[in-house]
């Protein structure tokens, strides 16, 4: 069950982010999971419960946004949904010159920290590369 490794990766990434933002707790973790990512959101939900024990995320709300798959056939300029199991062949020409536009996402979309009223500015200033 690689969902556990993925949940651990989420916890580690969020923990690092929290430290960078000087936050001592995490309220919310938002994830985006594409339907072609090979990750089962229910299993991820379960794994997250295990992975977050004893961390800053122990009481965080965990939400997963499913991203539908979109495939584009370059020669036909047709966009289609590949279905389940995925069929990446173009429904119009049966060709394989396709590009997956969406559906491979496995990303941390947002993290919510408890915010004291005076904290907004600090968080904004704290982020490197801005």
């Amino acid at each position, binding site marked *: 069950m690689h969902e556990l490794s993925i949940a651990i990766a989420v916890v580690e990434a969020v923990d690092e982010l929290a430290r960078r933002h000087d936050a001592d707790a995490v309220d919310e973790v938002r994830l985006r999971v594409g339907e072609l990512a*090979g990750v089962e959101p229910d299993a991820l939900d379960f794994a997250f419960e295990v992975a977050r024990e004893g961390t800053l995320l122990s009481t965080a709300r965990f939400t997963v946004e499913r991203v539908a798959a979109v495939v584009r056939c370059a020669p036909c300029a047709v966009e289609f949904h590949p279905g389940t199991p995925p069929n*990446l062949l173009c429904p119009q020409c049966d060709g394989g010159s396709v590009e997956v536009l969406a559906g491979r996402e496995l990303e941390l979309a947002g993290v919510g920290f*408890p*915010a004291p009223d005076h904290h*907004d500015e600090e968080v904004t200033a704290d982020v490197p590369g801005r």
Partner: protein
Amino acid sequence: MCQVVDVRQAVLARNDGLAETLRTELRARGTTMVNLLSSPGSGKTALLEVVLARATAEAVPAAAVTADLATENDAARLSRSGAPVKQVHTGGLCHLEAAQLRGHLEGWLPDDTRVLFIENVGNLVCPASYDLGETLRVALMSVTEGEDKPLKYPSAFGLANLVVLTKADLAEAVGFDEPAFLAAVRQVNPGVDVLRTSARTGLGVAALWERVLEVCDGGPVHRPPLAGHRDRAHSHPHTESADRHGVDAH
């Protein structure tokens, strides 16, 4: 009151970054990594035994890392080829990760290694999600497993640069429907090459070895549509950094 930091960071960014580092390090020393993925019992080890023996016979420096949850069995088998072989125990983990692999290679992998084979943990689900730094990812399947496996495990077959059918000598005995298998592969990975092999008869072994050497020499590697998007996501500025694009309080 809570403030949400907009992140847009790939969950496996750390693994993928380390994999890229490893790929660069290996390239710099002239080593090409081949990652073999399949279910348990598909014949990865048997095929690798024959391929490593061929490498030894042709004096091409090859090495192998074989990963399992337990036993040294595969390393003992592969070592008979004369190639350096390392058995890795994943500690219960169902796949290898780049950091773990890199640690095992340090101080062990001979400098002159031209091809490094990774025999991943037998599993068609988890290893598919982890880039190890390989240049060639091979998904293997035996004729005894059923021709619809590529549809059942689309990530494993869909992200492969090459698909290898094993135990082809048994195809007739088990009534393997090869056209259905090829159609299933094409559906999840259009344009990928499929090699029929048999470790027992030697069928396809030369073709597989030639393909590996071509890749070592910088030959073209099939890019699956599924992987293409992933690569593009990596170069996306939003996923490169762990940083935010806006803070909204709510």
